[in-house]
């Protein structure tokens, strides 16, 4: 039987590689055999590369289980909401090395069936990168991994290979805005109960989805050849909110659209005072574009918006009845979960006699109560500030690592940046010299449109010196509202042990978009409840995890008087990475006001204390 199976595989592979050769009755040539085995080995190599990152997830109470995948060496694991809803707020996770680790719930998204848990006990967990699910094509190989039927004894995952059967699929939810699979990937890789939450890999070993459901309709709960995976690009949009320990809601425009004569038009509003109405949308207006995608059908729009979280700054283009085209940026509002609070159920009474629950049953009841608490917290709020701060440390350590190849490379040195300042239409309007010490002090000398000024941070206070020599100490609030300072402090403070601590306690505020990319939004809060925001993109253009400073502003939408600064064009200068271009922007759409562009970035030995002190006479600019 096994021989027969191998025979089938060999014949099949032969068919791929030499599509003209009919296998039956023909000897396999050495050349063909080489290709067959090469294909097989490539597949085995792809499995080997990622199998260590797959997690078998169990609750504390016996029975059931699911799967997950580690996406960060700190032990952060992506899985399904319905897995943790069953397993509870903590439990055990097994990986292919055979070990079981404790896990804790971090955050959950019932709307899109995504949750993050964190394995505890190591800081070097094997992990897999998230791929770009927009590049997944029908016919691609798709490897599903996980723990179907809670099969594994030694924690090694099961691998099932299939192909991508469809992309941009929509699977309606379970009611109450829950468990909607929008823009998901359909595969014929075997997905069975227990596979839930496990990764779908492409042949490059990138996570392109999280397997969450199958068409089990009227067929019993076993694979029927149609499985669905939440796309990795949707996961990217939700990771920050989940790491902020939120119960995440999905976003909506509060407007309903419909297909009318080849157009997608606005048909109704769900509420009064809808934000997009304030921005000019009226009934009958035609939707042209959403988040950069031209809209051709209402289904497509529903697919796209169902992958975005609440408060996501969506880019919407629509056409008014008079032909005017409006281009707006709007933060999505939350789609509330109409869920009955899950009730903790005491064990069933038998024979009318009240039985004392066993310790196991007591534990189960306790866990149900804890999960019920999680699911009834106010959506969008930070549930566990302590855990949020721990996750925030993971984020800032990634951000720090993106600045320098090694801390030694910059320690005891000064970064000197010579910038030219360009107007919004790229005309030169001035120059500036920035000096940053490796301990986060800095001095900025600006000459813009003929006027000079200087800003200094001496490690304790912010100072401003005007052209006439007048020296002024700036409050921290004032410093945050000065974009010239923001362009440096957001970078320089990252070099410190506890970044942004000068502005208050740092936490993950949630998910957002910066520079058109899913981002973390970090927030500091000081004793006076004043705040400062820093954005960090999560992935580089290849989809690899690369948490990197992207934007900073004192305003959530950068629409206040000060605007914000975007950091781009990162370059390596003798072991340090510096954003050669800093764009001063305003508003949700990041409208360019002016830019600072580096002509030269140098790393100089030593730190001259005088440079970072204001009381001395101004030093000559280079």
């Amino acid at each position, binding site marked *: 039987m096994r021989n027969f199976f191998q025979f089938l595989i060999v014949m099949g592979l032969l068919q791929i590689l030499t599509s003209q050769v009919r296998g039956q009755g023909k000897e396999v040539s050495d050349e063909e055999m*080489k290709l067959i*085995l*090469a294909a097989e080995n490539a*597949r085995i190599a792809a499995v080997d590369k990622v199998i260590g990152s797959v997690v078998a997830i169990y609750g504390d109470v016996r029975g059931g289980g699911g799967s997950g995948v580690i996406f960060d060496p700190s032990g952060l694991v992506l899985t399904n909401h319905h897995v943790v809803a069953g397993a509870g707020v903590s439990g055990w996770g097994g990986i292919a090395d055979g070990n079981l680790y404790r896990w804790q719930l971090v955050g959950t998204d019932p709307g899109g069936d995504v949750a993050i848990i964190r394995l505890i006990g190591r800081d070097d967990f094997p992990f897999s990168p998230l791929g770009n699910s927009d590049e997944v094509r*029908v016919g691609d190989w798709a490897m599903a991994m996980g723990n179907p039927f809670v099969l594994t004894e030694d924690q090694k995952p099961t691998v099932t290979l299939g*192909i991508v059967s469809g992309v941009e699929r929509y699977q309606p939810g379970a009611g109450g805005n829950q468990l909607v699979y929008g823009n998901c990937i359909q595969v014929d890789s075997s997905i069975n109960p227990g596979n839930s939450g496990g990764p779908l890999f492409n042949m490059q070993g990138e996570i392109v989805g999280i397997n969450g459901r199958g068409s089990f309709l009227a067929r019993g709960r076993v694979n*029927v050849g149609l499985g669905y995976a939440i796309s990795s690009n949707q996961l990217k949009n939700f990771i920050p909110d989940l790491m902020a320990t939120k119960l995440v809601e999905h976003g909506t425009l509060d407007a309903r659209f419909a297909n009318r004569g080849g157009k997608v038009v606005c048909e109704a509003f769900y509420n009064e005072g809808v934000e997009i109405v304030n921005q000019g949308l009226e009934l009958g207006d035609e939707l042209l574009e959403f988040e950069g995608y031209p809209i051709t059908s209402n289904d497509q729009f529903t697919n796209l918006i169902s992958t975005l979280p609440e408060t996501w700054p969506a880019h919407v283009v629509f056409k008014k009845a008079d032909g005017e085209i409006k281009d707006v940026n709007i933060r999505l509002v939350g789609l509330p979960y109409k869920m009955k609070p899950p009730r903790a159920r005491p064990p069933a009474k038998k024979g009318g006699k009240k039985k004392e629950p066993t310790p196991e049953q007591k534990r189960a009841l306790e866990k149900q109560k804890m999960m019920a608490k999680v699911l009834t917290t106010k959506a969008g709020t930070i549930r566990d500030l302590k855990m949020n701060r721990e996750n925030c440390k993971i984020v800032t350590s990634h951000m720090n690592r993106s600045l320098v190849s090694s801390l030694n490379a910059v320690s005891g040195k000064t970064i000197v940046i010579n910038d030219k300042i360009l107007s919004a239409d790229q005309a030169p309007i001035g120059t500036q010299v920035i000096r940053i010490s490796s301990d986060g002090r800095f001095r900025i000398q600006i000459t813009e449109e003929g006027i000079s000024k200087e800003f200094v941070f001496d490690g304790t206070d912010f100072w401003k010196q005007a052209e006439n020599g007048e020296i002024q100490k700036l409050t921290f609030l004032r410093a945050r509202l000065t974009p010239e300072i923001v362009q440096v402090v957001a970078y320089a403070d990252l070099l410190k042990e506890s970044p942004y601590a000068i502005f208050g306690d740092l936490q993950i505020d949630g998910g957002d978009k910066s520079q058109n990319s899913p981002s973390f939004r970090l927030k500091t809060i000081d004793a006076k409840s004043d705040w400062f925001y820093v954005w960090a993109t999560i992935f580089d253009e290849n989809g690899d995890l690369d948490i990197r400073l992207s934007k900073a502003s004192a305003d959530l939408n950068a629409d206040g008087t000060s605007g914000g600064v975007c950091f781009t064009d990162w370059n390596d200068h003798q072991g340090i990475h510096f954003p050669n271009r800093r764009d001063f922007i305003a508003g949700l759409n990041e409208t360019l006001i002016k830019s600072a562009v580096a002509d030269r970035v140098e790393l100089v030995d030593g730190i001259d204390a005088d440079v970072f002190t204001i009381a001395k006479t101004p030093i000559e600019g280079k």
Partner: protein
Amino acid sequence: MRHHLKRSIAHWIILVALAATIFVGDDSLADERLNGFLKKAVDIAQPKTVKIFGASVGRVEGYGTGIIVSNDGHIITGNGVYLNGYSTRVTLNNGETYPVKVIRRDSNLQLALLKIDASTPDFFELGETPAAEKGDWVIAVSNAFKVAERAEPLSVTLGILSLETKMTAKRRGTEVIYDGPLYLIDCITSNPGAAGGAVVTADGELVGMIGKLIESKETNTRMNYAVPEKLLARFLAGKPSESTQASTSPKGNSKPADLGITLFSLGGRKSPAFVDRVRRGSAAKKAGIRSDDLIVTLAGQTISNSTDYKSVLATLIPGEKTVIVVKRRNSLERFDIVPDEKK
């Protein structure tokens, strides 16, 4: 085979290093090998395969799949209930939707020929030469579970053509009268709405069409199979299907069995299998069954009610001796019985 495997193992060891260079060294090649090979078939098959929507009847789904077989709108699909309504529509790959006329049906092969008023330049040219043989990759394109509507592309699943076979085992509890040749495939196609879908080679050539659901009532399993292209070609040409001839021939064994027993009808499907009447000259009469006997087992299977009796009866083969056990007063009686052909 053994020699073959030995050689594989040797190559295995040598090629671990080689594979690394091939698949790491040249990404574009690797991508083509790993991901590209099905795209051609998918691109060819999608525009030649259509979605069919009609009325649902009870729990039977009101949708299916079909393949385009001419440039002027001829489509072959399974003979499903969704063709019976007045509002059956076909949706092409580009999202255009047309009303359907049913031209011909074949109750044997469970096929239907449809026509829409549209020009269909992308179609499968049906021929007699098989495009694939056992062991070849095949790709099934269908609208299982109605995952696609309008212009959305159909589902694509991958499998291997396992073998071409006659359905001699299908009699066990199924009601399908067809017993001609079929292709068994190892990808799951036995899903609602999949019937009528295209089964193609890696080059996009038609191998066959996903057949109507065949389900064993006894084991609750379904067959994954395709109706071979040559049978579709004959159906399109208006020739009677092979199996029609086969089943009318004296050797045909597809007739259901009959024992000549009428059970007490007490209403409900779970009534005990008490014998009410035994027809004169019937198999049961010859065996010695009498009125008021309670059937306990038939062909080795426990009969606990009249429904059990009917499902076991459906698996019996006329002329093939089997055993029936009945309870008569206080004793169990065992009889050999030779089922007749049902007239």
